[in-house]
């Protein structure tokens, strides 16, 4: 397979057009060139290479999982990742949250006219590398070019398909009183990395996004026979929103402890400065797992063996409740309700 590297040895395959033009989406020669030389070359695999209108593939009999997500992050490149790697990791992680083994992705590109070809190529190379690391193939796709000013550089949609190879019912409805709540690592990094980059905030150290695929540790839990009740990635709205959604669906009380929730020093400092709560900030490589108490410490140990979940910790428990509720035991030992954020997280004046 032809796998160009993105670095000094990864020349942009379309030299004569430094920017994406409307014609690159127009169905003619330029579009053909873009598809062949950029996407076809980077994502090459036997299914994609057949160049049908739809990809054809076989899967073993059983249950499939499917998910879709659109990526509109600005800036396109940020410490710890970029829109391309995020578009792979995010969709792979959504599949992982149902315990599925991710197999195939589609990707749709909406490109704003004038996007530097070099930028597109960097993103595409990053997607290719991320897909390889995740063991998934991009088998079909679409490209549209929109007028200058009608997009924000580049939007990407990915749809993922995976196979379910376990017999558990992994869903919020399966969460039971007596379950332990496991957090897969430190929280708040992605949101703060993006905010620092977007707003030009300078901190002593650069906060890196946690964007990473988490399907391997999840599959490891299932392989070890751990009865996984529910998994939820902690993207927009952060840990607080995820737990509230699950408490609501399952009709339970979730009680967690502030002290057990890892937040890196730099993230903590940035949050303090801007008046944000790390529990409300988005993550791109973190999830919460609901697992029967008896399996909890074994699950944590298993997760800790994988790099992306090496910071896994037990943060709380599920209990019966007359009304759904999430409570947080604060650093000084008092308890309070942990609510969903009302809207977008905005820096506070005081």
């Amino acid at each position: 397979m032809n796998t160009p590297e993105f670095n000094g040895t990864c020349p942009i395959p379309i030299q004569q057009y430094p920017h994406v033009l409307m014609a690159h989406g127009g169905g003619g020669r330029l579009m053909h060139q873009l598809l062949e030389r950029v996407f076809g070359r980077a994502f090459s695999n036997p299914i994609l290479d057949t160049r049908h209108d739809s990809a054809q593939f076989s899967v073993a009999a059983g249950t499939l999982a499917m998910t879709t997500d659109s990526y509109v992050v600005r800036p396109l490149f940020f410490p710890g990742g970029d829109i391309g790697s995020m578009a792979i990791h995010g969709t792979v992680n959504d599949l992982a949250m149902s315990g599925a083994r991710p197999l195939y992705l589609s990707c749709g590109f909406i490109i704003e006219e004038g996007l530097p070809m070099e930028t597109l190529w960097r993103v595409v190379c990053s997607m290719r590398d991320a897909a390889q690391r995740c063991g998934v193939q991009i088998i079909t796709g679409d490209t549209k070019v929109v007028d200058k000013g009608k997009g924000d550089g580049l939007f990407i949609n990915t749809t993922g398909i995976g196979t379910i190879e376990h017999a558990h019912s992994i869903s919020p409805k399966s969460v039971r009183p007596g379950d332990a709540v496991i957090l897969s690592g430190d929280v708040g990094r992605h949101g703060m990395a993006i905010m620092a980059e977007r707003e030009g905030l300078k901190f002593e150290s650069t906060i890196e996004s946690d964007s990473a695929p988490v399907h391997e540790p999840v599959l490891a839990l299932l392989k070890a026979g751990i009865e996984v009740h529910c998994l939820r990635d902690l993207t927009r709205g952060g840990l607080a929103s995820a737990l509230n959604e699950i408490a609501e669906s399952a009709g339970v009380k979730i009680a967690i402890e502030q002290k057990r929730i890892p937040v890196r020093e730099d993230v903590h400092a940035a949050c303090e400065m801007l008046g944000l709560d790390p529990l409300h900030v988005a993550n791109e490589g973190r999830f919460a797992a609901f697992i029967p108490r008896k399996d909890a410490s074994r699950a944590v140990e298993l997760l800790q063996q994988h790099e992306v979940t090496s910071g896994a910790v037990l943060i709380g428990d599920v209990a019966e409740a007359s009304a759904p509720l999430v409570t947080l035991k604060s650093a000084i030992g008092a308890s309070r309700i942990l609510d969903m954020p009302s809207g977008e997280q905005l820096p506070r004046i005081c």
Partner: protein
Amino acid sequence: MKFLDEYRDGELAQKLAREIHRVTTRPWRIMEVCGGQTHAIVKFGIDELLPKNITLIHGPGCPVCVTPLEVIDKALEIAARPEVIFTSFGDMLRVPGSTTDLLSVKAKGGDVRIVYSPLDAVKLAEQNPAKEVVFFGVGFETTAPATAMAVFQAAQKGLKNFSMLISHVLVPPAIEALMSSPNCRVQGFLAAGHVCTVMGYEEYPPLAEKYRVPIVVTGFEPLDILQGILMVVQQLETGRATVENQYARSVRREGNQPAQELIKKVFRVVPRKWRGVGEIPQSGLGLAEAYAAFDAEKKFGVADHRVEEPADCLAGLVLQGLKKPHECPAFGKRCTPEHPLGATMVSSEGACAAYYRYRRHESLETIGAP
């Protein structure tokens, strides 16, 4: 985190809480003035550690929340103009005026931007000479020096395309307004540490004396607040009413004098409406005559715009401790965190919003009047 974790120590917090329990013999009602303190109280659950007979009355919340409808409506009108880049602190963007908020103006094409300092707005004005850059200057005395500095620098640079919509408010007149109400039930105050860092606390002894209330200048971390409460209770229990400084690591009696001089130079004291509360005399800052050219209200012709605060909002009574949020007829119905009427619902830490969010699962009896 250094300089923070020390003030969040669980054991020390419990120790202070035990001491508060030990010295408290009667019911007391204490108001924390600043939204930052309320935020810490709610975030750390500080009120849970207190004896049942100590009631914390949450103050008006943050200055964003007390900004009157009238001024927000002016902001919305200015921000929607095509020639304007409207800049604001982030949390102001979702505070609704009569009809909409700044986030919605942005969604409809207004150029509304979050800045972290008023000086960033001055920079924007320099970079965009063809645009009118407006900064929404809100805040207590804490942020007033930065706003003043922005106006001062803009004047020095001779910027003609920079102006400010000012809604700065002052703390001591608000305390005075609360206390002068014959029914006010507040018996002691935690004064706002950061306001006093700038202004010092020489304004407070006359208030403490006149209204016989202890006032303790207090910081924002859990241990600060617990210690501040302890100091207020000790005064109340022994019949004293003086001004004490818990936040000595930041606050000096005379405050930050260069900052005060700058405020005096750029601003003048004016009457100001508080959201849901009404007008409080001499409780705001407006631009001084010499800087009138930077007044966005005049520049965009919105100075005479008048909007009444909603009549069925009881924010003023809630702030005085005379009503509990759920006793308001609008609470949870016409007035919710998504569609707030008064300051106490706008602020996520305001008394009404805190009740709505954190206590809606409790029965009305358990959150009833003390």
